[in-house]
């Protein structure tokens, strides 16, 4: 294309560019400009300097990172984060798939709709509400779960206050909240499977169970792969809102994840440089993880993110 022709094409889209402008300004200001703020991870930044401080603060190199990796808590926090995420993936990833398979087997349409509608409900509640409910149910003094346990003659358990049970409570409540909503995508994918495949299998004498394993699962492997990649990319997140609302100093040992540690040490103590350094660490690792998971999916010839 000649330069003139190219320019004319650009001009012909001027309304579109105008439409796109507000959104791009937003992204520039609130997503890309903050990336420059990552510089403070390598500096000794004071919030009193405001935005300029990002560039005027003195360099301290990798000191913040040393502080983080060398801190007494680092390995504990990293371990907690990874273990909680891993547990959530191990249990929480297959659960919606299983739910979708079960719901798919239901022929009674009213019951099907009932189960689906009910299962999505917790997703729409905030963690403030769900954590509040959980605290009430699990309370050692008046929670109904402990009342049942006491009725069985066993000792009452402080679930959210004990190192043994806290993580299980986190994983279980997270699953309770999201399994229904997550199953929607799988149900939609299952609905797209060619029914002839099932008819053929049925004629070959395959049971419904065999059909589920042999037809349904392989047919949705692409969507499973995409969602898995997204989950792995968020490995270091481990659910800040949930943990923050449910944890307490008694269980820091098992509950403290990277984000909660950064919130206390970085934000509350105004160690902004430190918090930014850890945030940068997280972002970089997440990025690498997503890339790696994507590459793995490509090797296994499953659907990739791009």
């Amino acid at each position, binding site marked *: 294309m000649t330069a003139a022709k190219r320019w004319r094409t650009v001009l012909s889209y001027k309304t*579109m560019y105008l*439409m796109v402008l507000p959104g791009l300004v937003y992204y520039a200001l609130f997503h890309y400009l903050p990336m420059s703020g990552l510089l403070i991870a390598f500096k000794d930044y004071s919030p009193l300097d405001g935005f300029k401080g990002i560039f005027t603060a003195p360099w301290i190199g990798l000191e913040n990172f040393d502080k983080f990796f060398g801190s007494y808590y680092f390995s504990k926090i990293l371990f907690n984060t990874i273990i909680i995420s891993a547990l959530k993936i191990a249990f929480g990833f297959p659960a919606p798939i299983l739910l979708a398979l079960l719901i798919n087997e239901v022929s009674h349409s009213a019951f099907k709709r009932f189960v689906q509608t009910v299962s999505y409900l917790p997703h729409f509640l905030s963690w403030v509400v769900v954590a509040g409910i959980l605290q009430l149910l699990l309370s050692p003094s008046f929670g109904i779960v402990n009342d049942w346990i006491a009725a069985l003659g066993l000792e009452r358990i402080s679930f959210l206050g004990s190192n043994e049970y806290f993580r299980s409570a986190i994983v279980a409540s997270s699953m309770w909240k999201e399994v229904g909503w997550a199953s929607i995508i799988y149900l939609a994918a299952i609905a797209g499977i060619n029914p002839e495949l099932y008819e053929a299998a049925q004629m070959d004498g395959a049971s419904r169970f065999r059909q589920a394993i042999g037809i349904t699962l392989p047919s949705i492997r692409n969507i499973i792969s995409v969602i898995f990649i997204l989950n792995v990319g968020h490995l270091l997140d481990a659910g800040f809102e949930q943990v923050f609302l449910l944890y307490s100093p008694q269980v820091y040992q098992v509950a403290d994840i990277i984000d909660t540690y950064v919130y206390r040490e970085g934000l509350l103590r105004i160690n902004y440089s430190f918090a930014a350094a850890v945030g940068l660490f997280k972002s970089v690792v997440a990025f690498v993880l997503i890339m790696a998971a994507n590459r793995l999916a490509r090797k296994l010839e499953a659907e990739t993110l791009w």
Partner: protein
Amino acid sequence: MVGRLSQGLIYALLLLFSLSVLFPFAYLIAVSLTSETVLSHMSWGKVTLGTYRLIFANNRFFDSFAISVGRTAVGVALNILFSVLLAYGVSKREMPGRKAIMLAIIFTMVFSGGIIPTYIVVTSLGLSNQFLAMIIPSLINAFYVILLRNFFMELPPSVEESGKMDGATDTTIFFRIILPMSKPVIATISLFYAVYHWNEWFSVLLYIRQSDLWPLQVLLRNLIMEANNMETMMGIGAGDLVAISPESIKMATLIVATFPVAVLYPFVQKYFIKGIIVGSVKG
């Protein structure tokens, strides 16, 4: 026979699951309506609306409710405005620079500056302690932009072409033709944003200092924490507070915070489902 058994098993499992979702709410409602501190025997104490009266008498409750409603209304309006304009713009396949713009948007989904740098930018822009601080930093959700863009791309080009042949400008086409056709998807995305605004509370923790800007979720959280402290100092307070236990207050507050969502939800959920399905299967 084997088929019948496993069918029954599946139904039973799903029923059990559904009940496990509904049970906590039933329990909350039951306890919030009684003056019994502990509903351990599942017995009915005096049914009373005392806890609800206490909550509604609290001025802060209505203020927070109004803040939440206001935030959701203004937030969704701005979200949709920015998202739809952006999405429509990048839905034009032949637009030069489109790929770069899409890349810039999608990149923000995998990498970001983090909480602190964003906080610095937001406060430097004078948004600290402002109502808009709850709305502007999260103005556009890249995923929803992609959903909207895909929708616009699926529209038959003939619609626009006939508009152009009639001499309409791009703007007229957008407002008179495209928008009316997009009502369902815009409604769905609006609902997604609305749920986000109604539930979100962390940005308040970060940016808001004054309690009269608290949305409902933040008030709720503070009430729960206050009530937690109350029970470690049981007995302090007015005489009738003893009859209405901190737990009941908590539960009633939870019910009231959940109530709008729970009531609207059955009517609205089919939009969510359609939106997710259309968006992800295509995207």
